[in-house]
């Protein structure tokens, strides 16, 4: 009774206990957010205003009209036609494609190297696991830029001049300080299309065949050599396409003259240095991801497989790797994005990627805002697209819990 009388005088004391409006968390939240919004708007508008007046003072041009101006600089590597009178826009497109090319090759090789090194580090063989460990610990503690410069300045530029080229395959592959020269095969007439058609058909047939093989195995238990048959389909159909379209092709071998090599396909040393450094550097991080992914699958899973009579290979392929992939894939895509972003270091060795070309355009045209906005657009676009795909994948492959 006494307690209730003590607690009850809410009505009489309410004047003193009144919650002031500035102590209300909702109102506080509104004020805080309003202040934040105001601050951001203020900072941005001041910056834009200052930039505008600065640009006016210096009579700088604005807008993306400069993309139609003539570039007038040469690029060491162009995947699309890049004539002498090309525009800035064309140059930036060449740079973008070069970035994409390096990223694709870097990702491909780094994935292969990373999986090999990651599995090697878990090997029972002491020599193999030690080599993998030393590789990981050394390469990941040295800056990528230093590695890139080492490959470019320290290794590729001190190769012999073209007339003393290394010839790994005499007469057709040349390696010198101007790059790697390899024979070029080009298909003429309908042959190129025939091969392409055969390849697409082969891939489609292989996918259908593997679906059928899985369905049959689930129904009857009988196994089908899906991998080998699929490989045969993917290899054989393009060859058939090649033969029935008349097998028209020309080869273009690099030819050595007194001072230089002509013909063939040239892989520029900047590209080689970039891909080499990106591969070795990213391979380390992928190796660590693969290792932790495989270790994350509990050993009981392997024991259960052995108890069921699966072989080591089957255990790995059917049970361990599918579960490890769930852990591996999200950080792996992060590394792929890192390769794309790190390829911008190309600017240090003069490989004409997006940042290198953009930097030249920026210096020539002085339109810093537009060039940097283009960079951001490309890199952010890649990141956001990948992140969206990743979220979709994660939702699809999340462990279904009871």
């Amino acid at each position, binding site marked *: 009774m006494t307690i209730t009388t003590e607690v009850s005088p809410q009505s009489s004391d309410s004047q003193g206990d009144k919650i002031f409006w500035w102590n209300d968390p909702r109102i506080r939240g509104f004020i805080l*957010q309003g202040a934040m919004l105001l601050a951001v708007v203020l900072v941005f508008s001041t910056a834009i205003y200052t930039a505008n007046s600065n640009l006016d003072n210096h009579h700088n041009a604005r807008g993306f009209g400069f993309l139609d101006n003539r570039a007038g600089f040469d690029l060491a590597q162009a995947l699309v036609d890049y004539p002498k009178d090309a525009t800035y826009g064309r140059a930036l497109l060449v740079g973008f494609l070069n970035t994409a090319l390096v990223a694709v090759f870097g990702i491909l090789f780094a994935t292969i190297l990373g999986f090999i090194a990651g599995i090697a580090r878990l090997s029972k063989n002491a020599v193999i696991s030690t*080599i993998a460990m030393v590789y990981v610990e050394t390469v990941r*503690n040295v*800056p990528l830029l*230093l590695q890139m410069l080492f490959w470019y300045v320290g290794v590729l530029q001190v190769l012999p001049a073209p007339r003393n080229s290394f010839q790994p395959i005499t007469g057709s592959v040349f390696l010198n300080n101007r790059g790697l020269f390899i024979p070029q095969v080009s298909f003429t007439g309908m042959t190129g299309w025939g091969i392409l058609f055969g390849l697409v058909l082969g891939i489609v047939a292989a996918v259908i065949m593997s679906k059928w093989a899985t369905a049959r195995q689930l129904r009857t238990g009988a196994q089908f050599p899906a991998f080998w048959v699929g490989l045969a389909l993917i290899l054989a159909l393009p060859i058939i396409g090649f033969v029935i379209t008349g097998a028209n092709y020309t080869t273009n071998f690099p030819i050595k003259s007194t001072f230089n090599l002509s013909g063939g396909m040239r892989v520029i040393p900047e590209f080689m240095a970039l891909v080499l450094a990106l591969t070795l550097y990213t391979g380390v991080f992928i190796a660590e991801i693969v290792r932790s992914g495989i270790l994350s699958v509990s050993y009981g899973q392997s024991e259960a497989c052995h108890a069921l009579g699966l072989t080591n290979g089957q255990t790995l392929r059917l049970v361990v790797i599918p579960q490890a992939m769930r852990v591996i894939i999200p950080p792996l895509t992060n590394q792929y994005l890192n390769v794309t972003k790190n390829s911008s270091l190309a600017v240090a060795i003069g490989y004409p990627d997006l*940042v290198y070309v953009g930097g030249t355009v920026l210096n020539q045209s002085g339109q810093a805002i537009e060039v940097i906005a283009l960079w*951001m657009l490309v890199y952010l676009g890649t990141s956001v697209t990948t992140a969206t795909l990743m979220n979709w994948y994660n939702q699809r492959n999340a462990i279904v819990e009871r």
Partner: protein
Amino acid sequence: MTDITSPSTRSLGFVRAELVKPLPPPANLVGPVAWIRKRLFSTLPDTILTLVGISIAVFLIWGVVSFAIVHATWTGEDGDACRKNLDGACWPFIGTYWKTFVYGRYPIAERWRVNCVAAAFVLLLVPLAMPSVKGKLVNALLFIFVLPIFAYVMLGGGIFGMPPVETAYWGGLTVTLVIAVTGIVASLPLGILLALGRRSKLPIIKLFSVIYIEFWRGVPLITVLFMASNLLPLFLPDGMTVDKLVRALIGVTLFTAAYMAETIRGGLQAIPKGQYEGAMALGIGYWRMMALVVMPQALKLVIPGIVNSCISLFKDTSLVQIVGILDLLSTVQSSATDARWASPTTVNTGYLVAALTYFVFCFSMSRYSQFVERRLNTGHKR
């Protein structure tokens, strides 16, 4: 029963009274021989792998040893000796230039000031890194607030009778460390705020934090540095200039803060909800709840992550050479192009020394982070 235990029966000896000591395992199952057989030559493919691996290792180790030691040039007044010997490292170049690698173009008479800053840095960092030393809060505050001011005054000079030294003269390892340490120290508070912002229930704060973090994480550091050196002057009132090094520092800090925020957010997510609820039940406000209850636990959990950010920032400082700041790597490079010393092996020797320097710093940081991880025993978390 008595018969069996009686002495006469026991002497017949068909039943042992005590267990026989176990025999040692067969010689080929223990010891070095068994280890070699099991870990190197267990099967035929394994043997092939071992032999291939050993030959690769010998090839690489011999390559490094022969370059750095066996065929190296050890003495010489200038590059002539190195130009004659193209098989080995050019150590006299390092002997001549190592001080430049450390101090850059900092005036020789003033280099004691760099040493003072380095000494203060070590004196504050070592107790901060040792878990057993007390007074972490005071130490951290000194490190975060006092050390940068001290370093700025000492390195920049201009007061207390110290002649001013412009940042254009700072260089080498000094600048690398200045950028790395400033980047970490300045991005930590910013990262904490962003991490809190991203977990905030206020939609606008959360939105801004998410946009900030995802923006900086999505772009390469090089474009950030280009932005800092080309765009920042454009957004400042006419006539106001910002030092080149400061511009790079701003870029690096804003960039690192986004990564730091994600690391710290990981720590915040690992704190059980009960901790927040307990603090609220005690009637503590938001900021005191964060400062006194949540952050001390969260930051402790993410020390390995913060150290990893330090490692990648330390490596990324090498990119500032692209906006024309002479850090360790670019000092090494420009020294190697000195006409007196230039030779094909000079630059590689320089790269070797720079790589070793970076390696020593990064490797010790990663060992430290593993030590903390073991000590905090957060190994079960993924």
